């Protein structure tokens, strides 16, 4: 058994993982980052939009401040956010962005003078102040009062990730790429590292660490249709859940995007609809005005996704070998507009579909996009349940997003929370001595060795891993898709319990030798089904509609009974259901629950409304 030892083990080397790693390395601690792929291929690289920070440099961002950003964030969360974390986030964001500029991110900068921008597809002129020349510029993103999204052309995630990975290399952070953590080493109280499979050779290793961070991104790949990279399959969450003591916070909070292209689920921007694109059904009939007479295609992300699903359920979707879809039509915008203002869309259509959007319709369907829930942590990023375990980024439920996430807040969260949590990890490493129990390591190692052997030899059965996964795909989408209701959710929960039993009987078809990828998915499938079950069961129990969680049978947001966060743990390995507990959404109210910014809908108020407490003070 090869054993590595380090102060901090970061599982995941995307933006959040590397930002925490750099903070620890900068303070003299040894760090190893594990990554399924070379660090620069992390899903962080795919984010094109930008990062929100209230810098207020641009004309349309004038008058912005962390307070305005805070209000947008809490409102956007449908009051599901932890307001203490949201406050830390908005106050730290401007510093984090400037630091990234210092390290080398080529943020777009303010060009003084008259500038033409677009809002709702219409051009308008704004005047960029000469005194702001060369400061970080910002652009518009949905749901915000001010323009505050820092960006680098159309590749923000890519540019920031490359800069951060450079910095990590400079600081001596080790990245072990093509490795996968398959279990945590722990004794039920303290986390001591992870058991890791090398994806180049298939060899099993042990990593011992004083602090361990889960920064593995979202778990979108428990859905068949997801905009997430194929590596976002919940590996970190599964390792946490398998400890039996670390809870998933709000697993049911899942955001969908209306326009993923079919078949590969790559996004085309919402700008298409903003600029006047329309949605058509199988008869090429424009259906959105029937559902939303005022806003039609311009209704919010969630509303459009819901209406599209509703329409396809009526049998009006377009049949394809990849399932039903609808059409996005931008032909009437004209060649000039499409080849200039919507160039990325044109490129995506041509590169991945072979469709020319100037003359042809684009096949689209609503697609899983972001996981608001994750490994539940406190405001320091420390996971509940195990000492020495941390989490950050999309993997975590640090919980500044609550039940709906604002565009541009998620990418910013990776480095802002990374910076903050990194500081807390440094405090922990400086002030705590961890006793590593080699017995725990040996036990954990042996257990994984046994699992691998059983999968290769088919000791537990010969279920086909892909068949099990497809059954999970069908089931979760039916119950915990865009619309949810008691009956469908109950059916999904029952089915997933059966699928879980099948997942425990998977056996390989191939020989499992070396970097065998069938083995990688087989090692994960039981955990993926458990995650899917956490989503469905938590959604079944939450009898209200909040943010992206929409119950047809409970359309109200119910602050009286549900202003809380789900905590799902997997108490015993043989269970078929998670154990659900609840805690208040926030213990600090800078802003008491109010009107929702989107979708309207009724609200059942709290019996005793909370008093607003000043910035960051506990009530």
């Amino acid at each position, binding site marked *: 058994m090869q054993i590595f030892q380090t102060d901090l083990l970061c599982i995941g080397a995307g933006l959040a993982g590397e930002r925490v790693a750099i903070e620890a390395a900068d303070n003299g601690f040894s760090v190893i980052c594990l990554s399924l*792929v*070379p*660090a620069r*291929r992390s*899903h962080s690289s*795919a984010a094109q939009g930008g990062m929100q920070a209230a810098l207020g440099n641009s004309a349309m961002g004038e008058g912005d401040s962390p307070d305005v950003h805070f209000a947008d964030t809490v409102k956007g969360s449908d009051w599901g956010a932890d307001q203490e974390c949201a406050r830390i986030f908005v106050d730290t964001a401007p510093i984090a962005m*400037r630091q990234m*500029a*210092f*390290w*080398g991110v*080529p*943020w*777009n*900068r*303010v*060009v003084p003078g008259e500038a033409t921008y677009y809002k709702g597809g219409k051009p308008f002129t704004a005047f960029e102040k000469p005194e702001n*020349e*060369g*400061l*970080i510029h910002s652009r518009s993103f949905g749901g915000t009062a001010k323009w505050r999204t820092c960006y*680098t*052309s159309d590749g923000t995630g*890519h540019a920031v990730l*490359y800069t951060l990975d*450079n*910095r990590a*290399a*400079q600081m001596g952070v080790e990245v072990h*790429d*093509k490795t996968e953590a398959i279990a945590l080493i722990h004794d039920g109280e303290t986390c001591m590292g992870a058991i890791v499979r090398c*994806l*180049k*050779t*298939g060899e099993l290793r042990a990593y011992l660490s004083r602090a361990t961070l889960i920064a593995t991104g979202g778990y979108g790949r428990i859905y068949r249709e997801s905009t997430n*990279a*194929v*590596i976002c399959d919940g590996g970190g969450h599964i390792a946490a859940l398998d400890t039996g003591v670390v809870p998933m916070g709000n697993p049911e909070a899942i955001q969908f995007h209306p326009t993923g292209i*079919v*078949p*590969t689920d*790559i996004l085309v921007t919402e700008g298409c609809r903003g600029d006047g694109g329309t949605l058509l059904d199988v008869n090429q009939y424009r259906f959105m005005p029937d559902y939303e007479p005022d806003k039609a295609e311009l209704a919010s992300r969630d509303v459009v996704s819901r209406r599209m699903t509703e329409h396809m359920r009526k049998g009006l979707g377009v049949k394809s*070998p990849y399932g039903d879809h609808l059409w996005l039509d931008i032909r009437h915008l004209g060649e000039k507009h499409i080849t200039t203002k919507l160039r990325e869309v044109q490129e*995506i259509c041509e*590169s*991945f579909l*072979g*469709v020319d959007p100037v003359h042809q319709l684009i*096949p689209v369907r609503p697609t899983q996009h972001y996981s608001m829930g994750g490994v539940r942590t406190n405001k320091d990023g420390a996971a509940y349940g195990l000492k020495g375990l941390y989490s950050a980024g999309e993997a975590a439920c640090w919980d500044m997003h609550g039940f709906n996430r604002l565009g541009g807040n998620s990418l910013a969260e990776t480095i802002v929370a990374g910076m903050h949590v990194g500081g807390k990890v440094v405090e922990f490493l400086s002030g705590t001595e961890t006793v590593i129990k080699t017995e725990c390591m040996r036990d954990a190692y042996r257990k994984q060795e046994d699992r691998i052997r059983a999968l290769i030899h088919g000791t537990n059965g010969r279920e086909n*891993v*892909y068949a099990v996964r497809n059954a999970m795909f069908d089931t979760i989408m039916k119950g915990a898709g865009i619309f949810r209701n008691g009956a469908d959710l109950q059916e999904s929960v029952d089915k997933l319990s059966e699928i879980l039993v099948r997942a425990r009987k998977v056996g390989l*078809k*191939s*020989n499992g*030798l*070396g*970097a*065998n*990828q*069938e083995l990688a998915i087989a090692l994960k499938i039981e955990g993926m089904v458990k995650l899917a079950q956490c989503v469905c069961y938590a959604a079944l129990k939450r009898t209200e509609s909040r943010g992206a969680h929409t119950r047809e049978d409970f359309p109200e947001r119910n602050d009286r009974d549900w202003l809380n966060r789900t905590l799902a743990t997997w108490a015993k390995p043989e269970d078929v259901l998670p154990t659900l507990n609840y805690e208040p959404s926030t213990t600090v109210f800078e802003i008491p629950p109010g009107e929702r910014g989107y979708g309207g809908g009724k609200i059942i108020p709290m019996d005793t409304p909370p008093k607003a407490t000043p910035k960051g003070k506990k009530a």
Partner: protein
Amino acid sequence: MARMLKFNIFRYNPQDPNSVPHMQSFTIDETESMTLFIVLNRLREEQDPSLQFDFCCRAGICGACAMVVNGRPGLACHTKTKDLPDEITLMPLPIFKLVGDLSVDTGTWFRAMYKKIESWCHTKKVFDPTAQEERMDNAVAEAIYELDRCVECGCCVAACGTALMREDFLGATTLNRVARFMLDPRDERTEKEYFDIIGTDEGIFGCMGLLACQDVCPKYLPLQDVLGKLRKKMAFAAVNNFLPSFLKREINL
């Protein structure tokens, strides 16, 4: 209407003592908007679960799925079957170490390269969290980003004549990265320091100018211009000490 496609795929698992390198054929029915991402996943799930290949973003952004398709390095995710003949040959990228079948280890190669060129902003300044950000001209920021767009897929290295002949050649991707930092006012390295890194046959003078790198770059980076400018700069840097000053003025050095 639907074609039957024949795929000849390179197979070898270096970790399996019984495995020998060989080509294996698969057939699959073509569907609408089919990409190699869809093909390879279907082959693994329906025909041979031992098949190894890499995809990550599957959207042309991360560079994970580079392979040689009918003799040409490219990203598999945005290669559409309808642009290919009925018979398609898939090989792993050369130069990089083989993990198995179509999967190669690009990470180790790239990490070694960027340690060699110290791929980060070299500055003596210290970040001040209380200060406003240092200003930068937007045109400069955009020019840096233009070169920063490289996804490190490895296609340019796989297509490079020099890289095939000498293992230590930095390759277009690495030289492009150096050019990015030379452009960046935040990096305080001098021309002499850059010369020490790339003014050799491992670096810019090893390039034979065949320019396959630019032909196969899936991000359409202007590698021809970048390499040309770097070579000129480094050539002048090499003779800088010997040139009389009037000549330097003349050639604007």
